[in-house]
Structures are given as structure tokens and as C-alpha cells.
């Protein structure tokens, strides 16, 4: 758990630093077969930006989501690897020693108790 927490802390710190330090605007207007990419500061001209498609390389929200998912996957993988080192467990059941497993039931009684109804209104078609 310590590793998991430290990973998230480091990741959050990195995300915080990078998300505010770099913003890239890419100019997609091609000229002579190449793409011109210009990097501006955050005070870029509003009019110019209208013609640009801006791509924020370090998006804080996406980065945090990715890091959280990555940490979760990492935790699952190492947990599986760690569980392979543990092979001593108490047994919950005695199914290995059961005879006549297929003819267990002698008497069945199903009693109806009540019904709950959940209603969902249908979406009405738009009026013409």
C-alpha cells in the first residue's frame, strides 16, 4: 500500500508541475507540404487562436485518470504475483469428501412473498 500511495503522490506532483508549465498550440494550416508547429505562452492572441486547433499535451485531468488507472493495474499485477508466493490456506469446504452430491434435495418449497415494481417513463417522441 505504501508503494501505491507513493506512486500516486509522485504522479500527482508530476502532473501538477507539467500541466501548468507547457501548453502547445499546433498550427494545422499546411504550407508546402509540411506542418508548422508554433509554441506560444498562455497569453496567446485570441484572434490568432481562432484559426488554430489547440492540443493540450499535458491535460491534468486525463493525466491523473491515467496515473490512477496505471497504479491500479500495477497494484493488481503485483498482487497476483505476490499471491503466487502464498500457497498455505485453510480450506473452507469439504466438497472433496462429499458423496451423492447430485441427489441432495429431497423437498423443495418455494413461497411467493411480494413484488416490487420499478417504473421508468418512456421517452415521448417529439411532437410534429
Amino acid at each position, binding site marked *: 500500500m505504501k508503494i501505491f500511495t507513493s506512486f500516486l503522490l509522485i504522479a500527482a506532483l508530476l502532473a501538477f508541475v507539467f500541466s501548468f508549465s507547457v501548453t502547445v498550440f499546433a498550427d494545422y494550416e499546411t504550407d508546402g507540404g509540411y506542418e508548422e508547429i508554433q509554441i506560444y505562452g498562455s497569453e496567446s492572441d485570441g484572434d490568432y487562436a481562432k484559426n488554430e486547433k489547440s492540443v493540450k499535451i499535458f491535460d491534468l485531468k*486525463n493525466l491523473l485518470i491515467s496515473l490512477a488507472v496505471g497504479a491500479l493495474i500495477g*497494484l493488481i499485477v503485483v498482487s497476483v504475483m505476490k499471491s503466487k508466493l502464498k500457497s498455505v490456506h485453510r480450506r473452507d469446504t*469439504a466438497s472433496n469428501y462429499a458423496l451423492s452430491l447430485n441427489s441432495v434435495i429431497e*423437498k423443495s418449497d418455494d413461497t411467493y*412473498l411480494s413484488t416490487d415494481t420499478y417504473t421508468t417513463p418512456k421517452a415521448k417522441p417529439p411532437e410534429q
Partner: protein
Amino acid sequence: MAQLHEYECPKCGGALEFNSAIQKLKCPYCDSEYEISEFEAVDSALDQTENEQDSVDHADGADSEDSASGLVSYVCKSCGGEIVGDSTLASSACPFCGNPVVMMGQLSGSLKPDYIIPFKLDKKAAKEALKKHLEGKKLLPKVFKNENHIDEIKGLYVPFWFFDTDVYADIVFKADKTSLREDNENSYRDVAHYSLSRKGNMSFENVPVDASQAMDDALMESIEPYDFADAKKFSTAYLAGYAADKFDIESSSCLPRAKDRISLSVAGAVKNSITGYENVTLENADFEYSDTFAKYALCPVWLLNTSWNNEKFTFAMNGQTGRFVGNLPVDKGALKKYFFTVAGISALIVYLFINFFLG
């Protein structure tokens, strides 16, 4: 009655040992082989009453019991060396001459096991199983794997109670049935609630419970199952060359553990038989046990002990089936390395996916 018994080779006088490969007693000196049945006469003395056994407990070969420490000492008939063991020790080897000895007093009267499941696998198989057990474990410290030296390998007959019983179960479950309907304005989901009563019988045979306080219960349950079809009528000859303990937990104390496992099995089997319902949950369960019968048997276990970083690790192998278990240490450095590598790569892939495919 002599307290200690050594199985001596009729031809050369050497100490005989039970050989798991040929399921016979074999002399390691002249290679003579003997059927177990040839030594039945030795065991005839075991059927005497417990009182008689008590009266000879410390006579002849046996020698003294320190009631404070719970240790019992015996004198080896071959070399005169002192063999010291705890009060449950039923079979061992002389620490001076190495001859296998059986403490007959520990196995007579009511202490005599009904059955024994003989060893089928030898020490070599246990070592191989350990090697295999250590393979493919990425978080296992390399030093532990490469420099692993087993401190002790011991073939031990562990006392078990095997329970036969019939169970009458009366179980009530709660369950739902869902149906969908609709009219012009709404969709309806009807969830009908039911109480399901199920009654029935189930029989169980040879449910094992470890009857030794010294043995780790989880370790013993982990190497199950034993195939009781291979169980033989008890004879001390099977013990020659192996250690053995007598039971020190009564069957009445072991029965609740067997019942816990049995009741969960029955409830699970009954629940699995229910079809056509959703959200089946157990509401109430009553179990009545009848024809409960306990058999006392000795079961073969290879125990391997090793230590690493001042920590003791015990491995156990079922001496009949070869099932091998034992917890292993974790390499914390490797754990961090794998975690950061997997987490980092996964995070990168997820980030690229979100930005370039979903963004």
C-alpha cells in the same frame, strides 16, 4: 513389553526401513526385502488395553518422563544412546546410531491408529518438488532461490481424524425473479421476492482434521486431499525410517472443524441446485448430523524447513499425492520495480488512448 522397537533384518541384523517405492521393508545393508505382513506379530501386543499400556509406559526400554518439560527419554537398544522426544513422539531415529525406532507404548490400546496411509514418495521427490515450487516466482528473492539450503527434511506421519457423517440440511434462501413489461407510457420492472426452502441429505466420507497440536492446521489442510482408498490397516512396520506423532487432540475437539467445512459444502451444493431465480442469498440453515464416525489414521507428510533472513520457512508435501505447499518471502525491491514498471507503462498507454482516441 518393550517400549522401543527396532525392525531388524532377520538376515544381517541391520535396521530395516519402509521403502515407499516398493511398499516393503528393506534392509539398507543387505538389500533384503520383507512384506509388511511378515511383521504382524510385532503389532499383536498393541491391542492390549490402555491401562496395561500405562503400566508399562516407563518400563523396560523407556525410561523417564520429565513432566515439567513434557519430554520423554528412551534408551536405544542398538547403541545405548539416549533418545529424547516430546510426549507425542511415536516413531523416530536414534540421534547417535541413526537406527529407526518405534515407541510402541505411544501406539497401543486406544492410541493405536485404525489406519495408515503409507508414504508413496521419497525424500528425493520432496527435494524435486521444492525446486519446482520455487520456479517461476518473479517476486521471490533470487538469493533465496539460488542459495536455498534446506535445514531439515523430515518424513513424518501426522495423526489425523477422518470423519464419516450424514447431514440432514434444512436451508432457507431468499431469492428474486425479475420480469419486464411496458405500456404506452412506462416501462415496468417487477421484482418478485420468494422464500425458498430446501431439505435434503448429504453424506460425507473421510473428512480429515489434523489431530496434532504441533502441526500448523493451515499447512495440513493445504496439502489435502488424501486418497483414503490407499489406507492400510495400521502396522508399526510402516513407521520404520520415518518420524511419527500420536494424536494429542481428541476426535470430539476436531469434529467442529469438520462440521464447519461440511456445512459450508452442503449450503453451497444446495444453493447451486437452485435455478430460475436471481440474487439467491442464504437466510437460515439448520444441519443435523447422524451416523458420525471417527477413524484415527496416520498420514504421510514430508516437512522441509529452511531459514532466511532470520525467518523460518516450512514447506510441506503430501507424501501420498505429492501436493507441495509453503509460503515464500517477497523481494520488496522486485515488488517496487514491477509495480512502477507496470503502473508507468499502463498509465502511458491509458493517457495516449484517452488523448488521441477519446479526446
